[in-house]
């Protein structure tokens, strides 16, 4: 991370800025300062679901050392965490708990869907008990493919997330304006989840070959 630099939106010519910097004053936007600090101290949730969790742990160990990016503080409680790494297969029995944990996290909060399973169900997509992507219930910021992704990929996804954090606008971003975002917890009915997805965050992809309902029934 570089030091917070002057936002291009501020009308300040270079000589004035140089003079101010000589006097020990740095002119910056609050956004830049906030995002710089937030991006450099993203605290992930200690939340392992399946195989990917081991690679998530490996990314925190000495060889890969996620603390170089300021995220070594894994918190077991959602109330102190900023980032949820959904690391592994989300089954239909587990999905309600994942959403519930997400709801308990304070704002601003981010989600990385780690591994093929969390993105889409992955190799287990055909299974009757596997949720086909956690993005059906909670908004996902970074998708990290792999089965499982290497620890280097975990670090890269964190870098992508930091880039995303740097573009956030405190005035308009829902993380700051909408209060704590909470999404309805799906109910596991024994065979399936009810509702099957949250229309607020996910819509089924449009099928270009689908016929309008009237034609199909006629």
């Amino acid at each position, binding site marked *: 991370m570089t030091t917070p630099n002057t936002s291009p939106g501020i009308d300040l010519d270079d000589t004035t800025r140089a003079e101010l910097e000589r006097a020990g004053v740095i002119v910056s936007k609050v956004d830049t300062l906030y995002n710089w600090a937030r991006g450099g101290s993203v605290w992930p949730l*200690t*939340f*392992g*679901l*399946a*195989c990917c*969790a*081991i*690679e998530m*742990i*490996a990314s925190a*160990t*000495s*060889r890969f050392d996620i603390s170089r990016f300021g995220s070594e503080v894994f918190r*077991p409680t959602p109330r102190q965490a900023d980032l949820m790494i959904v690391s*592994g*297969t989300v*089954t239909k*029995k*587990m999905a309600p*708990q994942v959403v519930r*944990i997400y709801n308990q996290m304070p704002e601003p909060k981010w989600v990385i869907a780690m591994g093929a399973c969390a993105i889409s169900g992955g*190799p*287990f997509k*055909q*299974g*009757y*008990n*596997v949720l086909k992507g956690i993005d059906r219930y909670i908004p996902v910021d970074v998708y990290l493919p792999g*089965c*499982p992704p*290497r620890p280097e990929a975990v670090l890269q996804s964190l870098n992508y997330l930091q880039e995303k954090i740097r573009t956030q606008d405190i005035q308009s971003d829902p993380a700051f304006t909408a209060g704590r975002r909470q999404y309805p917890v799906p109910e596991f009915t024994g065979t399936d989840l009810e509702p099957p997805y949250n229309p607020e965050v996910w819509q089924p992809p449009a099928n270009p070959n689908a016929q309008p309902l009237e034609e199909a029934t006629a």
Partner: protein
Amino acid sequence: MSSATATAPNYELIQQDGLDTGLLEVSMGPHHPSTHGVFRMDVKLDGETVVDLSPVFGYLHRNHEKLAENMSYLGSMPFTDRLDYFNSMTNNWAYALAAEKLVEIEVPERAEYLRVIMAELTRLVNHLSLVGFFVNDLGALGTPLLYAFREREKILDLFEQASGARMMCNYFRFGGLRNDVPEGWLDRAREVVDRFPVFLDEYEKLLCENEIILSRTQGVGNLSRDLAISAGITGPMLRASGERYDLRKVDRYGIYDRFQFRVPYSDGDVGDCYDRFIVRMLEMRESIGILKQALDGIEHGPVLGNAPKVFKPKPAEVYGRVEAPKGELGFYLIADGTPKPYRYRVRPPSLINLTVLRDMCLGQKVADAVIILGSIDIVLGEVDR
């Protein structure tokens, strides 16, 4: 967390004058740092003492068996990697062993040696990580685990060079291995194996006679030999309870009959958490011995036998099993003459070893229940499948 009025069987509440006492029911999991995955323990507590415990699992049920019954025999080989995701190599081996019984395939000599090398390296990885997590549960947050993972990375590098993947190796095939190891791999493996005892000495010095570990684990989570045998416990957990049973000695699958090694076991009739911990530490020493012998004995040759291009066995029932690091891992297959198995069943050591959790935890403190769970060595991918 909620207070409950229900009493556990054979348990009487201590009533004190003027005090309304009750049992506390705590739901530990599925999101809990000590549960080794998505596992839940419903614990009933009297103060700090566990009076009842029921394990709840199924949070990672990924339909492994059903998926495998709908694909070709070889198609489920990569899925076996994801059963016990620490030990993909031994999972592969158990499945290959079962499938090789369906059709008579000769495994070439070099492949047999490489299988043993991979399986023993896997055992090192598993026991290392287990000890790291176990000590983590005891409260030594981080450092022992970092030590363990540092060594684990060296072995994972070997796996990656041989198979292309760190964790999900998918390296075994019916009748041998997918490919030979690259040039110089055996030398690198020997280097890792030769250096490993140095680390193990340090690790043992730090942990084995550590006063905190001794006082927290000795006499905690007792499992008698009789109960262990009747519950079907296998692996280091059974050996820690005093039963000398190791499939590498009993079945002598592969070429284990060629190697000299000892099977560590506890000499009492009851095994506690410390026994289970120390048996695994000793097993790592023996694995190094096997690895050295295998690396000395390996010769050049093919690594894939005369496996049929289309795997379509005649109707038969087979059961193939190996001594996985967690216990007896078995695959039971029923072939019906089609390219897909009619029935595909996994005998997971983690699940069956977990069945005695309640017996071991009753009467212990709630903080010890966490250690007892850690000493069983479960992986939820294998428990729920």
